[in-house]
């Protein structure tokens, strides 16, 4: 017997589902996106823009031709990595919204490696850059976990605040010690040596970090299901008291999962530096680390679904630039539509958890 709500002669019962039908796992996010776009159209109307034309333009800029498709994928790469890093910490019940900071630190670390070891050949420097970026982002991501366990500090606040520290650190280096004097008014670091650049698919800006990201998605899926570490993560995320009861070391596992999560998110920043811009430019991330939270939830934290939802959000971001330019609407409107997607994914999850029965009372 579930919760029953009565409105006059109508009775609505919420009953926990015994089994969650698989099709709902796809239907719910899909409907959430549709509903978000419908509500978003009210916002567009209030700006005096015809929603249908706007969404058509959005779709075109996002997926309409090979060029826009490739640009959508370019944006999907950092989203995918940041979302994977976020999702694995969420699965452990650690509400980490620090992917943005980890990504920034990853970019900073990558820049340092490429500037310092510019003489090394490709097959050495690219893995080395990845490793350092992963390590720096991972340690950055671990700090809030340490304070959470040792001092009970709320991770939502610490991860969020550390984002600003990271962003400001990047700003300092771009304007300060690493500023490329040859770039004139455009604050950025020196260009990365040819040998340190991650190659792109011919004729596009899609760098090969894409395959790293997809590989990580598959690997995470496997780790979560087949390894002891994965089981421990899901136990901790599912019920901390049961985890203690089962003798799982919360501290060690939380540090490990935030290390891995932070490291993966940092690869997003590294990819932007070594694969896309070939330097560390000012505000290179339009908040990928925050959008990653939405991307991860839309995928229901399933690593294999994250590439798909990242692609969708890459499109939304790309298409957002399109309607921003064509209709001169503020970018905040596109952000609002993103937020609506998150809102409806969470709100509509109720259909996934509960069987909702409406009936007329006799």
């Amino acid at each position: 017997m579930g919760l029953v709500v009565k409105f006059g002669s109508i009775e609505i019962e919420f009953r926990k589902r015994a089994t969650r039908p698989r099709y709902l796992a796809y239907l719910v996010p899909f409907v959430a996106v549709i509903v978000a776009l419908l509500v978003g159209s009210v916002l567009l109307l209030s700006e005096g823009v015809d929603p249908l034309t706007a969404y058509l333009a959005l779709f075109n800029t996002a997926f309409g031709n090979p060029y826009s498709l490739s640009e959508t994928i370019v944006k999907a790469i950092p989203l995918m990595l940041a979302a994977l890093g976020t999702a694995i910490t969420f699965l452990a019940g650690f509400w980490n919204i620090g992917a943005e900071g980890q990504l920034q630190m990853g970019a900073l670390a990558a820049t340092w490696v490429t500037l310092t070891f510019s003489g090394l050949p490709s097959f050495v420097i690219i893995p080395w850059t990845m490793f350092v970026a992963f390590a720096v982002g991972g340690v950055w991501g671990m700090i809030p976990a340490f304070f959470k366990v040792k001092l009970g500090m709320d991770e939502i606040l610490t991860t969020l605040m550390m984002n600003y520290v990271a962003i400001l650190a990047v700003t300092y280096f771009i304007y300060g010690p690493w500023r490329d004097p040859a770039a004139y008014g455009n604050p950025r670091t020196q260009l990365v040596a040819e040998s340190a650049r991650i190659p792109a698919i011919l004729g596009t800006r899609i760098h090969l970090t894409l395959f790293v990201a997809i590989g990580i998605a598959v690997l995470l899926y496997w780790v979560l299901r087949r390894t002891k570490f994965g089981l421990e993560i899901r136990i901790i995320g599912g019920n901390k008291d049961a985890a203690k009861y089962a003798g799982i070391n919360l501290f060690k596992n939380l540090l490990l999962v935030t290390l891995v999560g932070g490291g993966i998110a940092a690869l997003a920043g590294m990819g932007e530096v070594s694969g896309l811009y070939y330097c560390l430019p000012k505000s290179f991330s339009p908040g990928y680390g925050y959008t990653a939270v939405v991307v991860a939830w839309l995928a229901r934290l399933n690593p294999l679904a994250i590439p798909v939802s990242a692609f969708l959000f890459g499109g939304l971001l790309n298409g957002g630039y399109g309607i921003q330019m064509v209709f001169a609407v503020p970018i905040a409107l596109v952000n609002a539509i993103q937020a609506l997607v998150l809102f409806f994914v969470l709100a509509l999850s109720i259909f996934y958890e509960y069987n909702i029965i409406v009936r007329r009372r006799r």
Partner: protein
Amino acid sequence: MKGITKSFPGVLATDHVDFDIRSGEIHALLGENGAGKTTLMNILFGLYQAEEGEIYVDGRRVIINSPKDAINLGIGMVHQLFRLIPSLTVAENTVLGLRSSRRPFLDLDVAGKKITELSERYGLKVDPKAKLWQVSVGEQQRVEILKALYRGAKVLIMDEPTSVLTPQEVSELMGIMKKMAADGLAVIPFVTHKLREVMAISDRITVMRRGKVVATMRTQDTNEKDLAMKMVGRMVLFETETVRIPSERVVLQLDKLRAINDKGLPALEDVSLSIGEGEILGIAGVAGNGQTELAEVITGLRRASEGRILINGREITNKSTREIIEAGIGHAPEKRMETGVVPDLSVRENLILTNYNDQSLSSRFLLDRISIDRHVDKLIADFGIMTPGKDSQVRLLSGGNLQRLILAREVTRKNLSVLVTVCPTRGLDVGATEFIRNTLVSLKKKGVAILLISEDLDEILSLSDRVAVIFKGRIIDVVPTNEAKIDEIGLMMAGAVKTAE
């Protein structure tokens, strides 16, 4: 009540049930969980509406659409979980929701007088001015009864009325119920196990099973065995045999243990106990006297501030839970859903929750899916865990199945030498209770030392070899069960120190 029928999708909760109660009578409603007794009483109290059937009060057909209708007809209900507000006084709780004659002010003086009068009439000892959080569980229950009487109840439905009481409080409650019946009230207690109490108190008994009335009979015409058989539908082995194993070898030893509770106050004070091979030691006590903390300290979930814990002579005091598990301690915790499992994970994953590290189930990093599946299938079959499949979520299992799952996991651990179990059958129906108790007995035969912490004194007395009584964190006394007297134990549970003889 005539021909009451109510279905929920997939189940017929009550199937053409007839039930009647006369004034001045105690008519117990008996049945396992899910037998339909709660549904039936919820229909009578207006919480649900029946699809078919009629309800008559004093020969007049009535329609009860809400608890308000029920109260107006003189039907009151005392819930198992009390619905009272801790920060208000007894009098305030009693009049809560009623219209006062001095609106908008409360009429607490008049209420107080009426409460005193009612409580004197039925022996319901309460202090109208006491705040509810200050009073005992037994007194809270009396407030619930008063609330119903205050609203003019002539029929009083009581949901598992003795489940939270000490033996003394139970006999007090029985006295109150008898007085109410003598005064012309009709009382309907409904009960899942505790057959002895039903036999002692009721005039008539109705047994329900799977939504149908199996029998309605006069109490003098039946006995406990007969009732259990009617409830379950087959013979039940009720007297669990206590096999004395003449082993002197101590498996678990506690030496002057001290620990503090979550509020930082002493929870255990100089607890020294030992359990031998194949022995069941019962811990009797009123809830909240350190039992939970005792189980936690032994299983590594709480630090011991002083003292030592030894298992097979090896010290495990304040070791990590993992080390304690590996030393051979199994734990079936009190809060099954909150601590014993991860509700959102599958039956498969929860069946390996505490032993996935075992070499037969995993290598250094990887889970061995094939042997896990084999192990899980065997446990589901051996312990009769009813589940749609090993991939379905544990949060949907019934209480009995959940406890089967936890015990299946804990007692099949490779090197198990001690099992700590807290309230192992609380809230379970007769069938599951029987299974759990038999499991404990067969475990004992294998030589496992069992620490049985329970609030059900009958359970402790029927299963354990020795009984230790705990009060305010101290062990008052340890006595062999065959020498134990229930009233003496009851007194010790309430804090009376055993006088030297």
